[in-house]
């Protein structure tokens, strides 16, 4: 990916990428000041930022380390709860924890501290659960991590933990995205930041993940994805590197969970279902397994399509006197599912494959002569390799040389 010779090109591509990202942030800031805050655009950007972070964190595991984990919703749940528990103002606690006398926690952390803590607690749980789970093979790991998410969901709803988690009741009244807006003494908003700040948080986190991916540790993770046995033979300790990826991914899923809490303004354990993990997985697949850029683009597209652009499919539509058939509540999701199945079956590389934005820019720069990545065929063919041992050429070679030995 990066090497000495094309360093100059890489640098210019990176600069252009940074410029594009910067322009995006400036545009969002300006838009926020002039467009009504109720616009769907901002809903999409806020939720999209949250999903982008979670999708990238999942991609770190599924795409870059080759660990097929389905525990994302569980770690988001932990993050959302930790954030909520430590940021509900003390004055509101009696209201929120009405069945538990205001609950046990009677102090408040600043939002960013709580968010960091959300990530750390999620990472800690990942550390614990990683010990038994990460030793498992692909599909067993998937189902075990999924099961873990279900266990977390049940534990959080347990009545006995109510003084901390509020049992099966919702957490609310904690600082949300709207609290990022700067208000004057009369309570009127002077500067709108409720969309920009979440985008910045997600951007920062994703930037850190990109740094990790391009570090020596990132290369080690990719080596594990490409060939576990070869990676181990090159001195890469599988257990510690997988655990590292799992914990970091969960850290950011936890932060993403905290962001989701801020976006929703309320949190309830029963919302963090397996379906949520599936949704994020599908976002990763649509974007391209192994592409951070892809996960980001696909998150915004996914949210925009489901919350905004395809909404019309859920209502009756008239063209003149003609009522378009099939359109009613739920049709949007059917269309959506079909699009996803088409991507899964026919466009397996997703939007980006394994390419990133700088690759695209570089591609345009030199009229794109890069050989296409043979990844989908070559890599992660663990399933096939398991039952179809690679062909060996030693058979013939051996036979041809038997004579030589006897001479």
């Amino acid at each position: 990916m990066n090497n000495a010779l094309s360093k100059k090109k890489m640098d210019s591509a990176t600069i252009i990428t940074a410029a594009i990202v910067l322009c995006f942030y400036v545009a969002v800031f300006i838009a926020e000041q002039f467009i009504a805050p109720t616009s769907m655009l901002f809903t999409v950007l806020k939720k999209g930022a949250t999903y982008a972070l979670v999708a990238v964190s999942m991609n770190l595991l599924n795409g870059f380390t080759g660990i097929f984990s389905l525990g994302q919703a569980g770690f988001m749940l932990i993050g959302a709860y930790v954030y909520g528990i430590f940021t509900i103002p003390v004055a509101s606690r009696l209201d929120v924890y009405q069945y538990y006398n205001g609950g046990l926690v009677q102090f408040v952390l600043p939002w960013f501290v709580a968010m960091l803590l959300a990530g750390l607690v999620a990472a800690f749980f990942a550390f614990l659960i990683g010990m038994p789970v990460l030793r498992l093979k692909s599909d067993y790991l998937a189902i075990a991590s999924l099961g873990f998410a279900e266990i977390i969901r049940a534990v959080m709803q347990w009545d006995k933990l109510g003084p901390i988690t509020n049992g099966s009741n919702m957490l609310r009244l904690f600082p949300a995205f709207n609290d990022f807006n700067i208000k004057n003494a009369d309570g009127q908003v002077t500067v709108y930041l409720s969309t920009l700040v979440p985008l910045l948080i997600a951007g920062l986190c994703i930037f850190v993940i990109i740094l990790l991916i391009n570090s020596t540790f990132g290369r080690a993770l990719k080596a594990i994805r490409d060939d576990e046995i070869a990676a181990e033979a090159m001195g890469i300790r599988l257990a510690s590197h997988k655990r590292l990826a799992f914990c970091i991914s969960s850290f950011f899923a936890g932060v993403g969970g905290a962001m989701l809490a801020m976006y929703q303004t309320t949190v309830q354990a029963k919302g963090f279902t397996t379906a949520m993990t599936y949704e994020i997985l599908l976002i990763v697949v649509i974007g391209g397994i192994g592409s951070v850029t892809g996960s980001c683009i696909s998150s915004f597209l996914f949210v925009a399509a489901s919350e905004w652009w395809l909404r019309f499919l859920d209502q009756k539509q008239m063209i003149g006197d003609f009522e378009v058939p099939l359109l009613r509540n739920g049709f949007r999701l059917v269309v959506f599912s079909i699009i996803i199945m088409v991507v899964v079956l026919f466009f397996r590389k997703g939007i980006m494959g394994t390419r990133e934005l700088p690759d695209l820019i570089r591609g345009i720069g030199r009229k794109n002569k890069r050989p296409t990545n043979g990844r989908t065929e070559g890599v992660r063919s663990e399933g096939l390799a398991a039952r179809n041992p690679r062909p060996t050429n030693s058979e013939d070679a051996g036979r041809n040389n038997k004579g030589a030995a006897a001479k």
Partner: protein
Amino acid sequence: MWNTIFPYLLTGISVGGQYALIAIGYTMVYGILRLINFAHGDVFMVAGIVMVYMAASGMPLWLCIPLVLIVTALVGFLIERVAYKPLRSAPRMSAMISAIGVSYTLQNLVLYITGGLNQLYPTIPWISDSVTLFGATTKMVTLVTPVLTILLVVGLVLLINHTKIGMAMRAVSRDFETSQLMGIKINSVISMTFVIGTFLAGVASILYFTNYTTVIQTSGAMPGLKAFVAAVFGGIGSIPGAVVGAFIIGIAENIIKGLDIILFKLGVIASPIGLATFSDAFTFALLIVILAVKPTGLFGEKTTDKV
């Protein structure tokens, strides 16, 4: 004490039988394709919805039941042809993602058709009747399920051990490539596996929803996952393993559901402590423990990777 536990045990055996019928579908498909068919639980749910709509159309129930089973088997067949067959030579992760996609699609399709409302399952005479056994009142279906499950499993084992298609199935699950070279028609064996698996899920859906009386698009998710856990627990690929695993999980889950009341009546605890919350979680905890201790399950075979 017996009187307190017995009703939960009875329900547990019944639910266990229903899980067993679903679990067989998972274990057979995994045995042959090494694929966790995440959509299997949703096929089970679709079978329930089909029954609801058929009965609502005024069709007599004696006709509905066989039709539901045929339609379910057909759905299973189509899913394999459309969503899994094209990915057979792709990396394993692709097929698993496709299965998740199918699960998502089926749920959304049913959401669209039903409007996301609970659908009342038709009352099937006789098996819906109440019976009293050793002082516990239950539906006939509770007693019918384990018996029917055992009969179907015996039938299936006979099929697999004594027919040509059964032999082909065993061969394919042992060695995919070689059996292809030996002239076994892989495609028909795989289709047959899906047809049998979904047919049994259809039977399970009739028994299960007669008991729970309503169907919604998410109804299949949890029983599906639990049945899969049962299959892993028993050793994936092994039919007797799946059945034993399913009964253990069904019973354990229902005992936990009633554990508060049982412990309360036994005087162990003074007030309920909400253990029922963990009835689902227990299944998964069991899964993680068994995978950590014996990854191949109770009856699974050990395999060594070749380098």
